[in-house]
């Protein structure tokens, strides 16, 4: 499984730009050929991570990055940040929260608390084989 294309979006840690993250996520998922419901699911999952990042980051000067790795059969989305406090286990205090349920339901794989990694969270959606 070879990763081909990479798209990165870097955003201020502010609530007003989460809608931008959603549009970008939709555009990428749509272009990859995900069906319209799955595009919506990916958009929602991305938005939930953004909201949570903004909630845990106390400094509105913070920035975060969303990396999309695009492959023939999957989309991998990785969140990272150089200057958000408490980046790491962002959902730790909220393991049963609504956001977590949504992300788990909509993505195929989610790595919530990566050990010793320089990113915050990573999640993957596979493209279903057309039968």
């Amino acid at each position, binding site marked *: 499984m070879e990763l081909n294309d990479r798209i990165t979006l870097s955003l201020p840690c502010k*609530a007003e730009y989460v*809608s931008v993250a959603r549009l970008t996520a939709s555009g990428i998922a749509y272009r990859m050929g995900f069906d319209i*419901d799955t595009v919506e699911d990916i958009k929602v999952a991305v*938005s*939930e991570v953004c*909201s949570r990042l903004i909630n845990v980051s106390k400094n509105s000067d913070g920035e975060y990055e969303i990396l999309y790795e695009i492959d023939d059969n999957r989309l991998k989305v990785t969140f990272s940040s150089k200057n958000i406090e408490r980046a790491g286990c962002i959902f730790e205090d909220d393991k049963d*929260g609504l956001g977590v349920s*949504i992300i788990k*339901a909509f993505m195929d794989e989610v790595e919530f608390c990566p050990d010793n990694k320089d990113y915050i969270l990573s999640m993957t959606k596979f493209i279903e084989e057309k039968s």
Partner: protein
Amino acid sequence: MSGELIVRAEYSERDAVVYLSGEIDIYNAQQFKEKIYQVVENSKGDVSIDCSDLNYIDSTGLGVFVGALKKAKQNNRDIHILNIRDNIKKLFVITGLDKLFIIH
């Protein structure tokens, strides 16, 4: 684009209906909270939320729904959800909130 949120409330002798249009996310959830709490407070009975034109809601917005329901229940009232779109219904089901609200 369909970004902005419009909240419109209609009161009757018996109850209140709220019409939502646009998107609810972390950016406007606080504004939504103030408006919906106000309606729950002012309604003479149950509150119905018409979601015909609500095309997106995130967990922050769902949290406001739950808060509004708690507030309503304190006065022995209910919240009814009307005309919910499939993509938003899906969120209620996933989070188990479909069991708390009366979804028509």
